[in-house]
């Protein structure tokens, strides 16, 4: 046991180096204003300017002003959604699980473009319909606003949250809920007093992660906000880095300020979780009985159906429509199949599709292995330094992705001699998305492991099972949903990762997410729609396969329990 646990040390050392190295480059750049090798002078100009720059402070306030309501509303929405789908007898329950998985896999950028076509000012299709039907010049809703950003985030957060907390809801022991109901508690009281408190670690973990994710996200904010003058931290930094000349000192210094806020959030998280027990899967076995909602099951059905139609079908349908129009959203223009012919008649598109698949498979498999082992070391061993694993796992969120991307580029091109051989390769992209996904990936695994009592492993060991056999026969089957979720999230994260990859790709290694962004940036929305739909189809295909595998694993587990 001792040798095996010591064997984790080199792996953790490598992890530490990988996550700290680009961060160091960011801090270095905040003082020097350029990458190593530029011989720029040491200066505090970036810091002094950032603290006194009204626009930067405004961007900071907007970031929090958007993140807090998005997390709160998104959490409430997702908890209700997850409870309905996993713990109640809502009609078509099995289908909803599948559909929610499907919705997680709708890529953010194409979906956001669809929302702009639908609700983008006076030319938004829904707004035009509204004005036409009600003979008014006032539009229904402009998606390119603070409210629009919140709306789309909550919609997308619903399924994203579900991805995190769904397995925890599903694995929770129903006997506790039944005990509450035996004592006279209603459905909502049981949800509020039993279910939610029991799942606090999963919910809090997801909320915290989403908060940090939103602090560092930028695609939705860029498309909906930047042209309207709504800047969050990331889009403001993007504008600094896109300016002429590139304003590295300010961008890097602002990122260092960002680190302070992230550190505060992480400390809060540690305080909230410290010393609490959240075990819901024990050696005593657990029931998986559903809550009977009675007539309310149809209200629950309407809730989930409404979410599906508004959050999934509407933007996806708009996206599909866009692929057949000569000008997306303009019905006076002609319809055509040309967009498809041109896309798949071009070798660079096919190359990017191949790159995307390869990157997704490689990165997802790498991620699920690394995150699983690290989480196991953190949650299931008594390593004295395991706090370090958890602390290091947050480092990639310490700076916005766009700045970390620059740190990676500086690190690869201006840092350790010899590693520039990785530049522009899919291998570097896989490493980068592996690092970027650590906070989310570790939290998924942690949420899975934290609910798993060690008595199950101990029982297996007492019965003479070796550690690998215990892992294979006991731990892995119990965390199978987590494993599948982690792999899928890893795949999705890898193929939709944009910020990190757009700085290191080459034409031969361009992936579809980058292609879609470039097309959007070039105002070629119809072509972006074609590639966006292709990317969505790829995600769904993989999700269906993964869901099938997960279903089979759950069946095996239930047979074993029976």
């Amino acid at each position: 046991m001792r040798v095996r646990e010591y064997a984790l040390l080199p792996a953790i050392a490598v992890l530490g180096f990988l996550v700290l190295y680009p961060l160091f480059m960011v801090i270095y750049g905040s003082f020097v204003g350029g990458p190593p090798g530029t011989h720029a002078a040491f200066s505090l100009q970036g810091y002094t300017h950032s603290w006194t720059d009204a626009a930067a402070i405004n961007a900071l306030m907007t970031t929090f002003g958007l993140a807090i309501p998005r997390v709160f509303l998104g959490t409430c929405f997702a908890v209700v959604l997850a409870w309905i789908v996993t713990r109640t007898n809502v009609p078509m329950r099995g289908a909803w699980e599948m559909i929610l998985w499907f919705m997680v896999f709708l890529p953010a950028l194409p979906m956001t473009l669809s929302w702009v076509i639908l609700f983008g000012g006076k030319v938004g299709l829904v707004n035009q319909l509204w004005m036409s039907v009600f003979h008014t010049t006032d539009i229904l809703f402009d998606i390119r606003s603070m409210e629009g950003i919140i709306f789309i985030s909550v919609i997308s957060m619903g399924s994203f949250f579900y991805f995190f907390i769904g397995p925890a809801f599903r694995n929770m022991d129903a006997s506790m809920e039944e005990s509450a109901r035996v004592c006279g508690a209603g459905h909502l009281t049981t949800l509020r007093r039993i279910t939610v408190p029991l799942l606090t670690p999963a919910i809090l973990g997801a909320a915290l992660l989403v908060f940090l994710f939103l602090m560092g996200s930028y695609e939705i904010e860029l498309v909906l906000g930047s042209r309207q003058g709504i800047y969050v931290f990331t889009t403001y930094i993007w504008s600094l880095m896109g300016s002429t000349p590139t304003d590295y000192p300010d961008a890097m210094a602002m990122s260092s300020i960002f680190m302070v806020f992230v550190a505060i959030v992480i400390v809060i998280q540690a305080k909230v979780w410290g010393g609490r027990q959240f075990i819901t899967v024990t050696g005593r076995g657990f029931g998986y009985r559903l809550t009977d909602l009675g007539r309310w099951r149809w209200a629950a059905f309407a809730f989930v159906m409404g979410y599906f139609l508004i959050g999934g079908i509407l933007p996806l349908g708009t996206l599909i429509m866009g692929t057949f129009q000569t000008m997306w959203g303009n019905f006076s223009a002609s319809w055509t199949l040309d967009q498809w012919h041109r896309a798949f008649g071009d070798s660079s598109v096919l190359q990017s599709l191949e790159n995307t698949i390869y990157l997704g498979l490689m990165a997802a498999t790498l991620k699920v292995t690394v995150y699983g082992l690290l989480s196991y070391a953190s949650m299931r061993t008594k390593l004295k330094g395991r706090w370090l694993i958890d602390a290091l796992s947050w480092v990639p969120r310490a700076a916005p992705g766009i700045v970390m991307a620059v740190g990676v580029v500086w690190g690869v091109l201006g840092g350790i001699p010899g590693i520039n051989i990785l530049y522009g390769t899919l291998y570097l992209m896989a490493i980068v998305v592996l690092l970027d996904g650590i906070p989310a990936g570790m939290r998924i695994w942690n949420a899975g492991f934290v609910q798993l009592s060690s008595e199950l492993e101990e029982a297996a060991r007492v019965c003479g099972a070796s550690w690998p056999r215990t892992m294979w026969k006991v731990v892995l089957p119990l965390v199978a949903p987590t494993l599948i979720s982690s792999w899928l999230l890893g795949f999705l994260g890898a193929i939709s990762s944009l910020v990190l990859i757009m700085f290191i790709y080459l034409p031969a290694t361009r992936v579809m997410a980058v292609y879609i962004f470039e097309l959007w940036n070039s105002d070629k929305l119809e072509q972006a729609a074609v590639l966006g739909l292709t990317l969505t189809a790829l995600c769904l295909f993989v999700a269906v396969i993964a869901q099938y595998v997960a279903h089979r694993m759950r069946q095996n587990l239930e047979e074993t329990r029976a």
Partner: protein
Amino acid sequence: MASRRQPWTTLRRPWTTLLLTMLAVIVVLAGCAGGAAPAATSQPAANTGAKVSGASSSTSSGATQSGATGASGFVVEPGKAPPPPSNGKNYSDAEWAKIAAAAKKEGTVVQYGNFGADYDSKLVAAFKQATGISLQLVSGTTNVLAERVKNEYRANVYQADTIYGQGSIEAGELKGYLARIDVMPEFRNPIDPKVWYVNPLVSPTIYQTYAFPHCAIMTINTNVIPPDKYPKKFQDLTDPFFKGKIQMDDPATSITPDTTIWGWYAGLGFPDWYLDAAYDLYNKDAGFIQIGTERDLVRGLTGLLPAMRGTTGALPEFYAETQGIKNLKVIQFSQQPVACSSTIMMGVSVFNKAPHPNAALVWSDWFISKDGQTAWTQARPVGSIRKDISSPIKQAYWPVPEATQYWNIDMDWMNFMNEVFAKKIAFNLIKQGMSRQAFKDAMKQVSMDHFKQFPPPPRKMYSADQFYKGMQQ
């Protein structure tokens, strides 16, 4: 189980040591790298190419290139500057044939630049058909790509053959990274009035072929703006009717707003009234500007596009031809002396350590050729500096030679534009808010003084010989 955990109680010190060691290693390695990275120079070093999973990476051997010859005679190895003509003036047919053959063998040219992601581009297909060379594009704003190239060069990684941009970046940010542009076949008679609107040879001091003119032009959507509201003077744009209807590119990500504000100023002859009118129009609180793209104009989200860019003048014909949209119209202010009243340049530059140097030359030459410019104008709503091309777009609003009289496109002008960009006037004015006095001061500081003290001379029209002589200076 408790006994199993005991050994780890001794691990506190190893963990601390591990953390400190990791930090120390990072600091040391970064420090070493800082000293090791070479500064880029305009004189290329000899390199050897090596393919790495889709990336071609060259490592400097420290030797300097001498003369025009490489391992295979006239053509050069990857990672070197393109070969200059052996007579020092222009490429002979025999030399060019060798370059073309070597380029075909290289097979690929990688261009950094905001061409748009042209996977369907007729331009890419036409170039492939004409030369057998695959044009691969890395998109992004010019300055972001310029930073990328500088990072790559510091690590002796050479990926880009050419860059497409607005000249000022190339002349400023990328000074020292570009190869000399010599007189290629398409440039042998750059002052032939039957072929060129404006001279394609920019300046011996700017390593760029001049391909893409920008003009300050007003385009309107006639569905949004009724004829009686068409602005006749620039100041008419501040009519409250136009609030929220005037489209502008995002100054956070585009230089077009900067060039527009300055382009109209120059195009209208630097009148004093312009500074107040421009402030009234563009300032954030006035509410006239709607940040968007030309698509927003076409779809009617906005009604007016007073922009300085090559696409604007060709928009009506392009959309009418390609999508049957006929509600766009170009109009002219009464104050404009000519239809296309000022210009900046866009074009192609070749890197001095291009991995495909011969293909880079062939691409630069072909891009400006009749076939290249025809494909270019068919692929995008752009004008051309060539007169002899076949394009579905009428040329009524394309540049006229008189338009170029205002600015001398040389290093002075480039340095001036870099000053403008550095001030971020458009970004501050349109998005962040800026006082009238601050705006006027900034404008005067970087422009008024410059142009009043040093009136722009007529633009030079280089012949091939003059261009060559300029290079020797």
